[in-house]
């Protein structure tokens, strides 16, 4: 988190020195600051990890937005076509995510991705029950969520 603080200090310094203390000034300062930190990586221990995290978080956000669009289109298709093609099912999924924040993030993202909705977590927090709209192949859904959302969240959080 040290590098992040440094990056913010650089952003504030940029905004102050250019006399442009606005959101866009701070954003430009932040971008320039991270570029400077990236160039001088060898000087700051731990900055490799910082940039890796930034990359993993950006990946999580972009993939998540993509999944949100796909899932909305899928839901819209099912709403607007005359027959209901849904074959719903309730599926158990063992959780590898540890800690409340990770589980919250995983369950929230699962609710917003195609065809799945988090239904409940067991009291011991190691199984998540999801409601799937197309539950013909529960193992495929489990594998897809574990290899996708859950893995991305764990990578970004740890």
């Amino acid at each position, binding site marked *: 988190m040290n590098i992040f603080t440094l990056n913010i200090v650089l952003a504030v310094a940029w905004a102050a020195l250019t006399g442009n203390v606005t959101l866009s000034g701070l954003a430009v300062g932040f971008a320039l600051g991270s570029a400077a930190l990236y160039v001088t990586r060898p000087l700051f221990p731990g900055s490799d990890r910082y940039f890796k995290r930034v990359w993993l978080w950006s990946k999580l956000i972009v993939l998540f937005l993509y999944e949100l669009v796909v899932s909305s289109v899928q839901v819209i298709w099912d*709403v607007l076509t005359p027959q209901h093609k849904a074959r*719903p099912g309730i599926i*158990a999924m063992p959780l590898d995510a540890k800690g409340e924040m990770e589980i919250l993030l995983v369950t*929230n993202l699962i*609710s*917003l991705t195609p065809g799945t*909705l988090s239904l*409940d977590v067991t009291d011991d927090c190691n199984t998540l*029950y999801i409601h799937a*709209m197309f539950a013909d192949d529960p193992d495929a859904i489990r594998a897809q969520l574990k290899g996708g959302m859950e893995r991305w969240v764990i990578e970004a959080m740890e």
Partner: protein
Amino acid sequence: MAEIVMAALVLLGGFFCFVAGLGVLRLPDVLIRMHASTKAGTLGSGLILAAVAVYFADTATITRAVATILFLLITAPVAAHMIGRAAFRSGVELWKTKIEDDAERKLNR
């Protein structure tokens, strides 16, 4: 240019919200309805807020739009989860649903 982008965002967002509402009305059971209201509803509101940010393009509006989108992304799935969980536990009838393993026992249905 900004106006065209804004108009497209508002129309798309309105469409997603409309279909989300229609989905709540016509999908067969409570859990499937939650799919419509969380996914399409969140995306629709997000697009409309993005349109507001593009149109006004000042700091106060943009920060508020971004914060509102973030809070929507955090709260919409939680609300859907609570409604779905309450429905499942209180034994609402589910439409042609395959319930796996011992979900009913573990979740105190």
